[in-house]
């Protein structure tokens, strides 16, 4: 199939334009894909890192970030339900963070009890994760600058009460602009100054040997005014909220689709132009007895050769940029399968782009070879 290669090589400028077009499309698709994957993971991260089997949330609550308080007595009711091993309280809400500069920054303050999960950020005193440091908070590295935290420990005030940043953590950067600040449950209640009930989520661990679905139904019967979800259900619900209901997912997908379409048009244009330019040669191929498949193969090889080189260039262009991008968009996430998937989509795009050209090449009248 070096005929295909040589045809491409014949007009190097066009080949270059094609490759840039594909590289651009693949770059954009991988980038947007990483945004979407990162966004999906980030929007349910605080739920996914808990060890809980079940989550109890206010009726109709759709995400971790936007939730309403539950009556305090629900805690005692939940503890008493058959099959429940332990219940942990979690509260969260928006509060003002005093920056050293004197400016105030709105933050999402989250307080949870030990037991919520070993991966869940809580400022513990000890490595055994038993007691919580008081007036201590954790912030994510990607939000440290916004919050004016240069070194730890750093003193600050939240809602005019003293607090100390004891550690900078990773992987909990905000994806919607307002930084997360993690602390213990009791401190969070004080900082948030809830007038009455402070519990926002009850996190339930089921006794070994009990079916979580069974316990979920039992809890739902005892607490008809709330929603009870398994952790995975609530995680999916939160993702669906952020991706679909806020339109953020749609926006990301739209840009990825645009990348695909722009790439498709560029590749189609160039493969078509190359085919038209070589139409006489396709007629000769037909005249000397080339089968349909042979001609399809030549055009397809041209398209796929562009596709492979272009995808590779796109990926090579993206990889060195990932680090700086990660510094600005901390939650972006490129799983290993994403580049492969998008390169596959890019190749598919090239195949699609050659359809018109293949039709043209196959339709050429072999008898024209005798016309000078």
């Amino acid at each position: 199939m070096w005929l295909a290669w040589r045809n491409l090589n014949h007009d190097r400028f066009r080949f270059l334009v094609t490759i840039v077009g594909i590289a651009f499309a693949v770059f954009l698709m991988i980038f947007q894909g990483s945004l979407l994957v990162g966004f999906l993971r980030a929007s349910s991260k605080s739920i996914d890192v808990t060890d809980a089997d079940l989550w109890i949330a206010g009726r109709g609550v759709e995400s971790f970030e936007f939730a309403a308080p539950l009556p305090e007595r629900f805690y005692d009711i939940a503890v008493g339900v058959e099959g429940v091993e332990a219940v942990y309280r979690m509260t969260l809400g928006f509060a003002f963070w005093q920056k050293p500069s004197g400016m105030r920054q709105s933050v999402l303050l989250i307080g949870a009890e030990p037991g919520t999960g070993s991966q869940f950020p809580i400022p513990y005193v000890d490595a055994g994760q038993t007691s919580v440091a008081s007036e201590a908070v954790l912030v994510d590295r990607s939000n440290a600058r916004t919050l004016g935290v240069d070194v730890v420990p750093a003193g600050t005030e939240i809602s005019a009460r003293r607090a100390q940043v004891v550690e900078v953590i990773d992987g909990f950067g905000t994806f919607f602009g307002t930084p997360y600040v993690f602390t213990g449950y009791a401190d969070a209640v004080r900082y948030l100054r809830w007038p009455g009930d402070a519990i926002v989520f009850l996190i339930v661990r089921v006794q070994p040997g009990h079916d979580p679905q069974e316990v979920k139904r039992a809890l739902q019967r005892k607490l008809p005014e709330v929603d009870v979800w398994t952790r995975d259900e609530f995680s999916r619900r939160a993702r669906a909220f952020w991706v679909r209901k806020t339109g953020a997912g749609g926006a990301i997908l739209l840009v990825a689709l645009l990348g695909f379409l722009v790439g498709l048009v560029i590749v189609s244009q160039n493969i078509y132009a190359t085919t038209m330019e070589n139409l006489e040669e396709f007629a000769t191929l037909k005249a000397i007895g080339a089968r349909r498949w042979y001609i399809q193969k030549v055009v397809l090889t041209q398209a796929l050769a562009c596709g492979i080189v272009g995808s590779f260039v796109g990926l090579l262009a993206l990889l060195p940029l990932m680090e700086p991008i990660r510094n600005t968009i901390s939650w972006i996430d490129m799983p290993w399968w994403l580049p492969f998937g998008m390169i596959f989509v890019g190749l598919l795009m090239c195949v699609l782009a050659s359809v018109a050209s293949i039709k043209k090449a196959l339709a050429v009248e072999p008898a024209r070879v005798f016309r000078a």
Partner: protein
Amino acid sequence: MAEEISITYGSGHAATPALRDVSLNFFPGRLVLVMGPSGSGKTTLLSVLGCMLLPDQGDVHVRGQSVRGLSESQRVDLRRHSIGYVFQAFRLFRSLTALENLVLALDVAGRAKDGAKAKAEQALAAVGLSDKWRLKPGELSGGEKQRVAIARALINDPPIVLADEPTASLDWRSGEGIAAMLLRIAKEHGKLVVVVTHDPRMTPFGQRIVKMEDGRVVEDAEQG
């Protein structure tokens, strides 16, 4: 072999009858010249004989096989295995070298296995171009291009070779060389060679001359 073939281009007022009831028989080992004024239907006849055009009426038989009854893809197979073509405009692949042009023809016939390169080299040597194998068509003279084209037409060893005005784009010396080469192909390799030409220089090489006028055969004579 052609049987009472007729072909009309277009329809209604614009209809041009290009061939009218042409019947011809051809035999292996002969160089046949088809001559006649411009527009007399020579190229059309060659397209029909070459199984690229189906006649409106009549039929063509290639080695006993009726072409009319064949499907499009069967005609492609027939072209590939039975007929070699030489064109006035050479029609080599411009981005490929002389050698690669021949390997491509082997590849089209599904014969680009190992040994293809050696076979192509041998074919180039047979037309006296061993030293020009790495040149592209743009770097070859007209006569050299036509020799590569003849090598290509022969590389899959078809029993029939069809040539349309093979010398029209060449000067006198190269033209004569090509004519001699075509005659040798007929005589020594026992192939049927049909050459459409305006070129009176070709006349001495023809073993049989078919004269056409206005879509009809007006003269058909063996010579020498």
